[in-house]
């Protein structure tokens, strides 16, 4: 694995330099077009500054920029326990050390991506559609793939590349807009023969058109190998290649029907949602999904790197090696495990859909209230009236609020909330902010996120849940 990491570091630097050259060239091209005299130098300087600023952004907060542009929301464990647990399981299996932050994108198209710079500061994001469709084994495969990207330091490379690629596209876009709207009003300071002017226009347009293309080529050429490597790692971490294979199939089959996700992160995803056909072209960031699935299925009961390498050659008939010799060198038999037998509630698609619906509500700041008639009402967090009527049966529900604790009580908290059952519960803090408790909430107090007050949580006396019969 270390060879892969060292290689990635080298390629990251190379890519950074190549993109810098491209940006400077693009700047110079635009400069010449705007002012044939001193424009080239000025444009080059602008391009360089742009490059430095972009690199700084990429290095300091590129992951946050990407997460923001993908509309990803960070979650806590109680929001999606299954996802959180699977991420931690894969962290352990990969020996990553500290688990990545977990984000959820509220999007129906199933997909996942990872961003970040250091192994200790990385994030994985999945869509709600993914959570709804995949069972635990499949989710493990996908998260294993993303964690492998983090362990192999692919995320650093991909994040830098994605931000720079965005910058180059932006600059080229800007130029074409300028050409469209303002090109006619060029000031005629320097008199040049018509041919020269035409040549300059042509050259500038060519550079502006080719720069994003070249950047994309550079980027894509590097990223396909990484996908295979991450698949191999995922199979080894989970010891269950079939899980990832099934997940890839599900993602690919529904991605075809869905509108593509945000373009900026498209290349970072497990399966590239922006990829059009099934073919492999110079411009694909990812190898075709069906090839990845076939390789995973051809591993023949093994789950090690050697098994993946052998399967890869069987499927592609490729003569070149995919994985480094030293990765396979210490080849030992790594048998794949059988499918998980846990028929836990999370494996039940209906329960899974309900969990995801709840999660989506929480992402949108909705508070669930269970009505006696079986309907689950979701109200916005800032809902003002303290009472809400069930639309189906008409029962009035109080939007729960915290009680003032007895001043003489032994607790130090001014506020107290008595749990009514073991299920999802929501109540208001004295400041009006809505707090939520998960079934797994076990602490004795929590701190209000908006006013900072400590609220003591008192468990129900008999410890038995009433929420099922509510």
């Amino acid at each position: 694995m270390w060879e892969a990491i060292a290689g990635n570091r080298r390629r990251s630097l190379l890519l950074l330099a190549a993109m810098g050259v491209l940006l400077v060239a693009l700047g110079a091209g635009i400069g010449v077009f705007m002012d044939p005299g001193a424009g080239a130098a000025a444009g080059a300087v602008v391009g360089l500054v742009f490059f430095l600023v972009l690199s700084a952004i990429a290095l300091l907060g590129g992951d946050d920029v990407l997460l923001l542009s993908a509309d990803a929301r960070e979650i806590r464990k109680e929001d999606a326990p299954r996802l959180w647990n699977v991420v931690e399981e894969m962290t352990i299996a990969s020996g990553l050390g500290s688990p990545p932050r977990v984000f959820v994108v509220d999007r129906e198209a199933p997909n996942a991506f990872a961003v970040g710079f250091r192994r200790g500061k990385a994030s994985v994001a999945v869509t709600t559609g993914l959570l709804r469709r995949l069972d635990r084994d499949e989710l493990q495969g996908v998260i294993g793939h993303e964690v492998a990207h983090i362990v192999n330091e692919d995320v650093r490379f991909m994040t830098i590349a994605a931000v720079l690629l965005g910058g180059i596209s932006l600059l080229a876009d800007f130029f074409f807009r300028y050409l469209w709207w303002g090109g006619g009003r060029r000031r005629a300071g320097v008199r040049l023969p018509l041919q020269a002017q035409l040549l300059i226009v042509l050259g500038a347009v060519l550079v502006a058109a080719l720069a994003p293309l070249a950047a994309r080529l550079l980027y894509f050429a590097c990223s396909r190998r990484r996908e295979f490597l991450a698949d191999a790692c995922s199979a080894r971490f989970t010891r269950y290649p079939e899980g990832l294979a099934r997940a890839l199939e599900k993602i690919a089959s529904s991605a075809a029907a869905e509108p593509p996700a945000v373009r900026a992160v498209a290349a970072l995803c497990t399966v590239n949602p922006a990829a059009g056909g099934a073919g492999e072209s110079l411009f694909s960031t990812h190898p075709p999904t069906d090839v990845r699935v076939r390789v995973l299925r051809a591993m023949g009961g093994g789950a090690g790197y050697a098994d993946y390498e052998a399967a890869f050659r069987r499927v592609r008939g490729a003569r070149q090696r995919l994985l480094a010799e030293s990765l396979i060198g210490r080849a030992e038999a790594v048998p794949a495990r059988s499918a998980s037998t846990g028929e836990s509630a999370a494996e039940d698609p209906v329960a899974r859909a309900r969990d995801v619906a709840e999660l989506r509500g929480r992402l949108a700041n909705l508070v669930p209230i269970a009505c006696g008639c079986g309907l689950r009402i979701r109200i916005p967090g800032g809902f003002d009236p303290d009472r809400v009527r069930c639309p189906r049966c008409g029962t009035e529900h109080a939007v729960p609020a915290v009680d003032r604790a007895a001043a003489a009580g032994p607790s130090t908290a001014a506020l107290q909330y008595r749990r009514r059952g073991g299920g999802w519960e929501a109540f208001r803090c004295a400041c009006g902010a809505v707090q939520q408790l998960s079934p797994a909430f076990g602490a004795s107090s929590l701190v209000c996120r908006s006013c900072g007050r400590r609220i003591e949580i008192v468990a129900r006396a008999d410890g038995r849940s009433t929420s099922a019969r509510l």
Partner: protein
Amino acid sequence: MSLVAILFLAVVVGGVLLLVGAYNALVRLRQQVRNAWSQIDVQLKRRHDLIPNLVETVKGYAAHERATLEGVTRARAQAVSAQGVEGRAQAEQELTAALGRLMLLVEQYPDLKANQNFLALQEELTSTENRIGFARQFYNDSVMRMNTKVQSFPTNLLASMFGFGEEPFFELQEQAAREAPAVRF
């Protein structure tokens, strides 16, 4: 003469650098093995912490299933006090078996299976079983890398000189392969 001296010096310096590198690699591997072991430790402890809660929840619905519940509690107590890699592997295996019996019993209580608290605990238990499996997997991978290094030629001299030994694998007798959580819900 001086050329020979320089050559000699270069060889000596190169040799020393190689030795230092090999030694550091051994240290790094041993550190990784220890980290991996402590990760297993953390996860086993996590499981031990979950069990009293689980037993309490089940008791609320099936208090008369005394024998099974006590079996779990006893197995947990033994696992907590077990010593050494082999001893602990043995005790943990018994705990897994006791938990399996408990979960089989849960099948007969639909009310319990619908309990939110129980569902949350069940997710935690499933995940903990997985984590233990993955931690063991990573530990054994690290141990294998370490042992290969300790046994293979140039480093084995260094290893015996500085007291790097082979590390024991964490193996379960019944199923050598990492089985999916043996607990059935």
